[in-house]
C-alpha cells in the first residue's frame, strides 16, 4: 500500500495551522475540481487533494495521521499499518460523504473506510447504487418521431469482492422532440447497490449528431440553398430536401443572397402533448454559387452583362468609380 503524505499533497508544511490548510485546499480545489477542470487527470488530482483535506481539517484525524506519518515516512517499501493498529470505530457521523466517497486504500486502512458510510438523510434505508450516464448519439431524423434504439453500456458487477465490468444491453424508446444536451432517465438501470439499497438509474445524455445538410435553431431547421446567378436573377423552381422527403419550391426572380425562404411546418417536431406538438419551419437561406469553369462563349455573355448591367454592388460604401 502506498503511503500518502497529505501535507505534501496540499503543499503545506507539517506545522501548518488550520487556516493555511484550508487556504491550500481551496486553491487546489478550485484548480482541479472536475466541474471546473475537464483536463485529463484533474479528477484524480482533486480526489487526492480532497482526501488530504478530509484528514488534515479534522484535529483527531490529523493527530492520527501525524502518528502514522512518523512510522510510514521511515519506510521505503510502501506502507503497512503498524502492528496492533486498530481501525477507528464506527463513529461514522463525523465523516461526511465526499463526492463519490471513494478514498484510497491508505485512507481506508487508517480511518476504517467509512468515509462514505453515513448520510444524515432519514428517508433512505440503505444507500442507493450509483447512477450511470452514457452519451447517446441521435440523428436528427430520429427526433421527429418516437424512435426505438438499442443501447449498450458497461456496468461493474461484484463477484466475491472482485469488480468485473459487464456489458449491458437495453431497448429503449427515445421520445419525439428530444433535443441536444437533454437527459433521459431509465429507472433502476444503473449500478447495483453494494449495501442492499435500490439500484441506481441510467441517464442517456442526448447528443444530436450534426447533420450534413441541416442546422438546428430551436425547432427550426436551417438549410443553405445554392442557386446559380441566373437562377437568382430569373427565378426558378427547385427541389429541396426535408427530413421527410423532397418538396418543390418556387424561387422568385431577383432573389438576393442571404434571403430566407420559410417553409412552414417542415422543421423539427416538439414533444407530444395533449395540445398536440409544436412543429418548426425549414428556413432555406439563399447562397449564390458561381460555376468554377467559364468557357469563352459564357465569358462573352457575362461581358455583355457587365457593360449593360449598370449596377454598383458597393453603392452602400459611397465609393465613386
Amino acid at each position, binding site marked *: 500500500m502506498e503511503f500518502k503524505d497529505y501535507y505534501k499533497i496540499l503543499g503545506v508544511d507539517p506545522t501548518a495551522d488550520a487556516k493555511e490548510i*484550508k487556504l491550500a485546499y481551496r486553491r487546489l480545489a478550485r484548480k482541479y*475540481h472536475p*466541474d471546473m477542470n475537464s483536463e485529463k487527470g484533474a479528477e484524480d488530482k482533486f480526489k487526492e487533494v480532497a482526501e488530504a483535506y478530509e484528514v488534515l481539517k479534522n484535529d483527531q484525524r490529523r493527530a492520527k495521521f501525524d502518528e502514522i506519518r512518523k512510522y510510514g515516512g521511515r519506510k521505503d517499501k510502501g506502507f503497512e499499518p503498524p502492528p496492533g493498529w486498530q481501525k477507528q470505530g464506527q463513529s461514522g457521523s463525523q465523516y461526511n460523504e465526499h463526492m463519490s466517497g471513494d478514498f484510497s486504500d491508505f485512507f481506508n486502512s487508517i480511518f476504517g473506510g467509512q468515509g462514505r458510510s453515513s448520510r444524515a438523510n432519514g428517508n433512505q434505508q440503505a444507500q442507493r447504487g450509483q447512477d450511470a450516464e452514457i452519451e447517446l448519439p441521435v440523428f436528427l431524423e430520429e427526433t421527429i418521431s418516437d424512435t426505438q434504439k438499442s443501447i449498450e453500456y458497461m456496468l461493474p458487477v461484484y463477484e466475491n469482492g472482485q469488480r468485473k465490468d459487464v456489458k449491458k444491453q437495453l431497448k429503449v424508446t427515445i421520445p419525439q422532440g428530444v433535443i441536444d444536451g*437533454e437527459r*433521459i*432517465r431509465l429507472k433502476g438501470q444503473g449500478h447495483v447497490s453494494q449495501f442492499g439499497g435500490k439500484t441506481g438509474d441510467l441517464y442517456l445524455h442526448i447528443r444530436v449528431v450534426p447533420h450534413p445538410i441541416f442546422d438546428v435553431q430551436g425547432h427550426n431547421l436551417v438549410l443553405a440553398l445554392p442557386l446559380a446567378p441566373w437562377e437568382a436573377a430569373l427565378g426558378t423552381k427547385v427541389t429541396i430536401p426535408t427530413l421527410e422527403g423532397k418538396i418543390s419550391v418556387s424561387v422568385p426572380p431577383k432573389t438576393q443572397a442571404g434571403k430566407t425562404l420559410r417553409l412552414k411546418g417542415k422543421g423539427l417536431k416538439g414533444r407530444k402533448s395533449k395540445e398536440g406538438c409544436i412543429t418548426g419551419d425549414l428556413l432555406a437561406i439563399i447562397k449564390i454559387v458561381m460555376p468554377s469553369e467559364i468557357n469563352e462563349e459564357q465569358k462573352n455573355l457575362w461581358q455583355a452583362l457587365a457593360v449593360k448591367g449598370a449596377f454598383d454592388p458597393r453603392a452602400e460604401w459611397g465609393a465613386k468609380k
Partner: protein
Amino acid sequence: MSQTHISISSTELSIVTGVETEVIVKLVEYGIVEPLNGDQVEVWEFETSSVHWIQKALRLRKDLEIDWLAVSMVIELMQQKEALEKQNAAFQRQLSRFTK
C-alpha cells in the same frame, strides 16, 4: 423495452439526489433548478437533467465550501457557457456552409 422518463417529481428528485425536500425548495429559490409546473412542492415536476445539476451543485457547495448563492452563480455561468458553446459551434457550422 425499458421505460424512459423525461421528467421527475420532487419526491423522487429528493430520493435520487439524497437531499431533503427543503433543500430542493432552496435550490428552486436560488434558481439552480426550475420546476416545469405549479407552485406546490408536492406536484412539482422537473426536467430529468435537474438531477445532474443538483448533484453538481451539492458537489460544488461541499468541495469548494461555498454558499448557495455562490453555487447558484457558478451553475448559472456553467449553463450559460454550455449554451454559448453549443450556439457557437452551430454558427460555425452554419457559416462554413456559406463560405465553402
